[in-house]
């Protein structure tokens, strides 16, 4: 079973974030300023050995990969940001491409939503609008990702590079864009592209042309399951919480069928986006490394036996400001990674 963890590259400063969020802004900025909102709420979460890394540094990226490989991850799925020719947070991935010591397999998830001053792609105060342009722009986009697709470390299915799209329903020109990319892929010596769309916290209507759908957790369960939300009173205002165990049980009890399509099942480490939006966010109660390991091992078994999937996608390697990360921290040490390894080995 190939376990892939999403990787957020927002751990270095960029001018756009400097302008809108303050000089030197990175994901660590939000993580450090987080506060506990209720009794038992653990914030701020602090990286192990105060390793507030910068992903422009080779040492930091290589260390991530060494850890990931040592604890059973097959690869990272990098978020890739492309706005009709404008790239954001592209440097870590470009540096990885050029680094011969960076050996971990990887793939891309095109995070195709507008950047706003709200953290979920809604239309409030747009920082960078997501648009798609015309054929010329799709070609330019393809030419940018081609070196990644051609790299020997890139994750493939049946020889085709696996490419995830976060919000496929937003791409009005999807059929045309896909068709062009397929032609360009073959022209450049690829067997085609293995297209994967994300099932997350938004409606995913019927859309042809995808080889598989990946369950992005816990968003997919938030959107399609029936978790029991509770409203806590906090000094910052009312705050929604949900219990970890029933959330996972919804994932593990879910019917495997969805219109006959191939599903790449998902898993999540935890959830707490209060570092980003305070009490307006949501947090999950009761997550522990042991529980994560137990649930993950069951989901891995389901992925193999029921979904017959080669992959399982974990949210996430390093979403610190969303409380879903595998990286070692001061509170749990390396226990999440240890549980990951046990789960990965136990079901092989």
């Amino acid at each position: 079973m190939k376990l892939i963890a999403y990787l957020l590259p927002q751990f270095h400063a960029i001018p756009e974030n400097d302008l809108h969020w303050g000089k030197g802004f990175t994901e660590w900025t939000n993580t450090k300023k987080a506060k506990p909102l209720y009794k038992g709420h653990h914030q701020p979460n602090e990286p192990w050995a105060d390793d507030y890394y910068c992903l422009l540094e080779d040492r930091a990226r290589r260390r991530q990969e060494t850890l990931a490989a040592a604890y059973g991850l097959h690869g990272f799925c990098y978020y890739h940001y492309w706005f009709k020719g404008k790239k954001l947070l592209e440097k870590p991935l470009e540096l990885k491409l050029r680094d011969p010591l960076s050996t971990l397999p990887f793939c891309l998830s095109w995070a195709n939503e507008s950047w706003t001053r709200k953290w979920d792609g809604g239309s409030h105060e747009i920082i960078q609008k997501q648009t798609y342009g015309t054929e010329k722009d799709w070609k330019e986009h393809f030419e940018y990702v081609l070196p990644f697709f051609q790299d020997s470390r890139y994750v493939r299915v049946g020889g085709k590079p696996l490419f995830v799209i976060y919000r496929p329903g937003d791409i009005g020109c999807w059929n045309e864009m896909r068709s062009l990319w397929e032609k360009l892929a073959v022209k450049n010596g690829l067997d085609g592209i293995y297209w994967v769309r994300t099932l997350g916290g938004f409606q995913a209507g019927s859309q042809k042309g995808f080889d598989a759908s990946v369950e992005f957790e816990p968003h997919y369960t938030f959107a399609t399951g029936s978790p029991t939300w509770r409203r806590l009173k906090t000094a910052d205002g009312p705050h929604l919480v949900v219990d970890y165990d029933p959330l996972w049980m919804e994932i593990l009890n879910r019917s495997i069928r969805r219109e006959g399509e191939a599903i790449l099942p998902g898993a999540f480490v935890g959830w707490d986006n209060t570092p980003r939006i305070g009490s307006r966010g949501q947090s999950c109660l009761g997550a522990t490394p042991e529980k994560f390991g137990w649930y993950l091992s069951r989901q891995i078994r389901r992925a193999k036996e029921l979904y017959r999937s080669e992959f399982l996608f974990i949210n996430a390697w390093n979403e610190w400001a969303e409380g879903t990360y595998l990286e070692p921290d001061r509170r749990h040490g390396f226990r999440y990674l240890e549980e990951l390894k046990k789960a990965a080995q136990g079901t092989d």
Partner: protein
Amino acid sequence: MRRTRKAEGVRTGKIPLHRQARSKLKPKPMRVRPRGSSSGRSLSGVRHAAPFRTEVGFKQQRVLLVQLLDATKWKTGMALSEQLRLLVQEVIAVDYREDLKELLALYHPDLVLLLGNGSGISHADVLALREWPRSVWWLDDDGLERPHPAGGDAKLAATQRLEFCSAYEELGAASSEMIVYPVDPDIYQPLPMKEEERADYLLLDDATPARLRWLQAMRRKHPRAKWLAGGKGWPLESVPAAADPQSRARLLNRARAVIRWSWSGTLLYEAAACGTVPFLKTLAAEPVPSNESDSCVRFRTLTGLARRLDAFERLSADEKRAASSRMLKASRFDYSHVPVLLQLLTTAFK
């Protein structure tokens, strides 16, 4: 934790007036007194507080479980006896060997429970069973055309077919209730299917002229839906009737939903365990719930079926998946061995 109270008035068993008001505010703990004990007092006269834990009602009972199930259902019998041990004090599980009369005399069970259809049970054993104060015959009569004659020999006839209940009471059972056998979760479970095997709807009955007209209308209305026939006479890809459980589970897994024009508790459990949505015709006397969290989609007429199917088709892919997931969850918990055994014990000890 036990606490010993030596306050005023306690030794006499009377609660002083100033404590009575407080005790009325607290709910009394549920307690089943052990056999032979008439009060909560120890021999020393000291009154102990009510036990901290609650005892489940059947935990004092001894059950003699006699297996008459078909050899292919050995796992069901074994699983039931194991799960029954969680609920009662003692289970004596035996295969039937024409010695029921002797076993009853030897063990004096509180309840004798027979599993299966009773073919080959001796006359002497039938008489002994009829005289026993508390007995259940849990018949495996789903595939039978008429009620099994053994259903009249026990005090309670537990049947797979709701429509057989009154017949069993006429045969001599004091009462009859539909209690469906739980399915084997090792066999009836979601299985991955290839795209070419997949269908949307599986029709598990034979065609009739009215049903054929109904199908024609549905195919016009939902041209993309793929249909499979598990019965005769349909102008569809037909699959042979699946005799063994493994083939049956595979067949159920091929479809997103299964439609049957007659009620079957067994099919409900099997389909739900496979994550397949069952559309089942209710019996005339039963109300048709409109609640989406029901474990199956029920209908009474062809028009009602069409309406429910239309509503199902209008759901998005994720809504359909969520509906199947709810039914799958319900079948795992509600139709598994312990809840079904509790239903049986509650009825038997009413």
